[in-house]
């Protein structure tokens, strides 16, 4: 019997040891645990960390690299914070997470450290996205917004200007496809897989008709969805876009397989090193009615965990990474559009990213996705609704929309 007790005791001790791998603080050096995603361009992050350690020898950043995909990264960070993991000090947040992380009490309000005078230097949309219930919970790192890429050579050849309405885009596609007679040349490519990107693309199209994703039954929303289903997918765009996220849709465009393409600003630098380099133009996304062009707001920010034991050191890290100097660094070396407005007049930033100048007004007016603590659930409901509506030829749009509206109501009712 004693032996069993011994074994049990060993097991328990072993588990206890596994459970608490405490953070070790060297003498005089505070370590800050920073949870970030796997970057596109790792060298830009490595040099940024080196610069930080040179400027702040008293703080050591311990970087934990999570998955590249936003939703998988969300699950990791949410899980850690839900468990009140003290080994998270600062973390990256996607633009859609702030209400959730604030309402759950995971993110720390930063109002004292990040006053309005400092907030004014960022795009208003980025700041609004970080506010929940009157307090600010994040400091923006970069901004994203959807834009239209087009094949300048083809549009020039057929004497077209970039289209301002969806109908004009379809007309241009019809003429170009008729003229080129190339089965490999599609009209449009975008992100319509059942994932977060579908929400971004559809928000742009729906809202450019005056509709709202949160009001799926409104005639404007229905009309826009019917347009995507009847005239884009399987027609101007290959049916495969229903399985495409950013990468696949961009591959189709950069391999010369599409005339028009919707993507985030990063696609510009990718297209520069592709077979269609030099033949790409950018424009605002088309709309149904005049002046209704809509771009979905994206981008990342830093938050600080409420369970952090070193919030002051964590703030030093956040402040450094969101400083003008570092946003310039990430713009020049990683093609990330800065969240700080003044950098759009910076010669180094513009030399590396000449397209930023044209995109400034798009960033200024980018539209946020629905703001609610239960956003992941609302997003899943909308993804299911939109993907069913777009992929099933015999789907009853009205019934699907009514169901989505009820489901969203239930989800939203769950937050007090």
């Amino acid at each position, binding site marked *: 019997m004693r032996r*069993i007790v011994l074994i049990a005791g060993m097991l328990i001790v072993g588990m206890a040891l596994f459970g608490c791998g405490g953070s070790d603080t060297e003498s005089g050096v505070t370590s800050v645990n920073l949870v970030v995603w796997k970057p596109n361009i790792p060298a830009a992050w490595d040099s940024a960390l080196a610069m930080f350690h040179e400027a702040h020898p008293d703080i050591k950043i311990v970087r934990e690299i999570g998955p590249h995909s936003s939703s998988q990264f969300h*699950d990791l960070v*949410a899980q850690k914070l839900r468990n009140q993991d003290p080994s998270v000090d600062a973390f990256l947040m996607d633009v859609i997470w702030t209400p959730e992380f604030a309402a759950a009490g995971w993110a720390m309000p930063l109002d004292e450290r990040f006053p309005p005078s400092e907030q004014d230097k960022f795009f208003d949309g980025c700041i609004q996205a970080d506010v929940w219930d009157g307090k600010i919970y994040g400091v923006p790192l970069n901004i994203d917004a959807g834009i239209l890429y087009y094949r300048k050579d083809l549009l020039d050849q057929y004497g077209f200007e970039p289209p301002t309405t969806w109908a004009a885009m379809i007309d241009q596609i019809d003429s170009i496809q008729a003229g080129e007679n190339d089965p490999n040349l599609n009209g449009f490519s975008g992100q319509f897989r059942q994932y977060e990107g579908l929400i971004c693309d559809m928000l742009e199209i729906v809202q450019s008709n005056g509709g709202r994703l949160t009001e799926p039954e409104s005639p404007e929303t229905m009309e826009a969805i019917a347009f995507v289903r009847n005239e884009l997918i399987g027609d101007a765009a290959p049916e*495969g876009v229903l*399985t495409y996220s950013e990468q696949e849709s961009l591959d189709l465009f950069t391999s010369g397989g599409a005339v028009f393409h919707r993507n985030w600003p990063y696609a510009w630098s990718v297209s520069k090193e592709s077979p269609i380099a030099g033949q790409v133009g950018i424009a605002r996304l088309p709309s149904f009615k005049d002046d209704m062009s809509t771009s979905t707001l994206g981008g990342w920010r830093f938050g600080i965990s409420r369970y952090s034991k070193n919030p002051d050191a964590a703030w030093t890290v956040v402040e450094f990474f969101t400083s003008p100097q570092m946003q310039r660094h990430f713009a020049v070396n990683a093609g990330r559009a800065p969240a700080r407005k003044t950098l759009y007049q910076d010669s180094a930033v513009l030399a590396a990213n000449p397209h930023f100048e044209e995109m400034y007004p798009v960033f200024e007016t980018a539209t946020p996705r629905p703001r609610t603590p*239960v956003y992941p659930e609302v997003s899943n409901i909308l993804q*299911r609704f939109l993907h069913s509506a777009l992929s099933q030829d015999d789907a009853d749009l009205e019934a699907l929309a009514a169901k989505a509206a009820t489901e969203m109501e239930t989800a939203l009712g769950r937050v007090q």
Partner: protein
Amino acid sequence: MNSERKAAYALVAPAVFIVAVFVLSPIVQAFINSLYRDTPFSPKTFIGLDNYRTLFSDSVATGTIEFTLIFVIVSTALEILIGLGLALVIHEHFKGRGLVRAAVLIPWAIPTVVAGVMWKYMLNDQYGFVNLVFYGSNVANYVAWLASEWSARMAIIGADVWKTSSFAALLILAGLQSIPEDLYEAARIDGANAVKRFFRITLPLLKPAILLALLFRMMDAFRVFALVYVMTQGAPGGSTNVLQYYGYQKMFPEQQFGYGSAVSVLVFVMIAIVATILIRTVRTRIYES
């Protein structure tokens, strides 16, 4: 208690302890969790069986249960049939049998996530191998297999059958090898042809092995996750969503721990029922023979 008994208890105690800590307690904990509404946005509240009520009334959940059952039934049926065929082939003596046996096992040895990614590429609408096979260079006819309901469902089932039929074959092959050769010899002398020998000797004596393969495959099929996660994430429109993926969506992205636990408990109960029925059948079969 005599000393022998004491020793016996002492010997099983570590195993019981490990099962209790690592198997039983999570199951009990999941069941307890499933009786609560547990999200980060409101205090944890006891709601009885409400989560289960939602699970059986919400059309998204019932659609998920429906496809999970379709998946389990169709994929295990195909896997047993194909596995039986494979086992019969690799049981025969022929030149290069070792090589064929190894080749048959390759799909089973590939990690599921890798297999899922591979199938996703093969089914791609621009450069997918499957389109090349069906349509050659006729690009205009290329199909986006994962974009419509039935082809996506078939793709998920097909990938699972491709990957795990060889496991069923392995179990059935073990059964084949236990059938004494003299039975066939006697049957041959009595004038039974190959078809008769198969249905009168092979199949009846294989029943325990087939039931065992069915048990393992069904239990595994209920737990399908990786293929769906990698290939479709439930798309198009949720038509390839399975219980394990649905539970994951509720539990992690949506942070609904109570409801997510209810989904896990449902999967556990379904597997437990199937396993109990099959294990009882296997036992009686073995005693009969």
